[in-house]
């Protein structure tokens, strides 16, 4: 029997997830709405004064993006584990890490990417100046990508746990603090007139590290969760 | 150093003593919790081996 080449298998997983999401697209928009709602909470909780909000705008956009992404990540593997698809992947003989990575990539496209696209708009509502848009978008692209991988590891570990969403956040958020620091501060730096190159490069380094090591951890975690 | 100065800790008595006091508490807790964890495991292991020795009816 001819074995499917790995890129083909990964592409199939990717397409399947996109198709499934297309059929339930309200699940895709919910994190986005949550994102806007959370960012709205901050001016309501503090002040309508844009000059004051500007100081924390980068941070608020980043925190809201992290929380919204996490919310969506909880269900990443749940349905696949329930209906046995994940077991098939484990048994298929394909490199499990690639399949999982492609699933995470599809998930990111559906949740992380829309958040990044929305971020300049949401940021501007908090007083973020136009010159910070580029940094915001780049930092969030790298950050949400890394978070999807970290969240994928966490989701794989907690897939069988009842009410696992809080546990997932508890596990992933401390690991995501460096992302928050470098990402939000890079936006702050560009608003202060400094170059954000340093933290952005660090974000990129962390992202590539997650990209290379993450699938390993994810496949180990999935195997643990799926084995009986 | 006389006893009075020792207790006062140059005016920082509250801070120094509470810090050392907390340290003592944490160390004592570790001692107590470790022993309790071991003792609990011993009693339940004993119970388990007793049950397995009981003849099945």
């Amino acid at each position, binding site marked *: 029997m001819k074995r499917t080449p790995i890129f083909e298998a990964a592409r199939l997983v990717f397409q399947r997830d996109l198709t499934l999401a297309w059929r339930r697209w309200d699940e895709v928009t919910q994190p986005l709405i949550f994102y806007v709602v959370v960012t709205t909470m901050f001016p309501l909780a503090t002040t309508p004064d844009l000059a004051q909000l500007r100081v924390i705008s980068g941070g608020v956009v980043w925190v809201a993006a992290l929380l919204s992404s996490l919310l969506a990540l909880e269900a990443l593997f749940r349905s696949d584990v329930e209906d046995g698809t994940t077991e098939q992947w484990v048994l298929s003989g394909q490199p499990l890490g690639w399949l999982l990575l492609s699933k995470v990539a599809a998930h990111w496209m559906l949740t992380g990417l829309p958040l990044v696209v929305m971020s300049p708009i949401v940021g501007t509502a908090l007083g973020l100046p136009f010159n910070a848009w580029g940094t915001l978008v780049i930092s969030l692209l790298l950050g949400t990508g890394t978070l999807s991988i*970290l969240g994928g*590891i966490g989701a794989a*570990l*907690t897939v*069988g*746990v009842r009410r*696992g969403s809080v*546990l997932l956040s*508890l*596990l992933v*958020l*401390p*690991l995501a*603090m*460096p992302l928050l*620091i*470098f990402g939000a*501060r890079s936006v*702050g*730096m560009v608003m202060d007139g400094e170059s954000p190159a340093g933290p952005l490069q*660090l974000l990129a380094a*962390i992202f590539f590290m997650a990209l290379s*090591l993450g699938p390993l*951890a994810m496949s*180990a*975690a999935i195997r*643990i*969760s799926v084995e009986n | *150093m006389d006893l009075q100065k*020792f207790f006062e*800790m*140059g*005016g*920082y008595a509250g*801070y*120094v003593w*509470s*810090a*050392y006091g*907390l*340290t003592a508490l*944490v*160390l004592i*807790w*570790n*001692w107590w*919790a*470790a022993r309790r*964890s*071991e*003792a609990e*495991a*011993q009693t*339940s*292991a*004993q119970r*388990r*081996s007793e049950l*397995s*020795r009981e003849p099945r009816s």
Partner: protein
Amino acid sequence: MWLWFHKLASPPHAYRLLGKMAPWFGWPALILILTATWWGLFKVPPDYQQGDAFRILYVHAPSAWMSMFTYVVMAVAAAVGLIWRIKLAHAASAACAPIGASFTFLALATGSIWGKPMWGTWWVWDARLTSELLLLFLYLGYMALRASFDEAQRADRASAVLAIVGVINVPIIHYSVQWWTTLHQPASVTKMGKPSIAAVMLVPLFLMIAGFQLYFGWAISRRLRGEILRRERNAGWLKEAS
């Protein structure tokens, strides 16, 4: 050599060995800690800058050290358990967690108490304290994950993955927090950890660290014995135990 290693990993043997080792850790630990306390509180003269408040260093720094040391031990044990499938290693990892979390809590509490006379506030977002706080979150997450599984084997292996991911992250977290604090130079740049102090004032510090390390050895031995008993279903050797 491998035979000894294999023997060590066998639960009944390890159980007996740990039982014999524990007092050899415990008593020296007690002596060292008491000596360090007396030395640090009594013998060392007050610091010319911080007065007597600097004596908190002698409990804060060793706690912070132990919090990080224990996490690394926990992660290494977890990795050994995961890679070579040695149950004893997983048990050791589980035993480390509450010990490490308590040291982290102590480091935070003593650091906070020290901060009040030094900087005037009970909490300050400096690199050391913030890193310790994040480390506490990592410990709590590890323990929460362990607790969420009914099956010991799954709990072991899942938390092992988490511990390994965490330990890789710890240097990143440290560096990022460090970088974050340098962005805004505080008015008084007081280095909390190690002010430049004379060698004689470092003696109680090293004594305390040594004492804490031995204490860790004692606590791990006792907890690990408990973990071994909990995990052993074979009643055979249990009858002779205790």
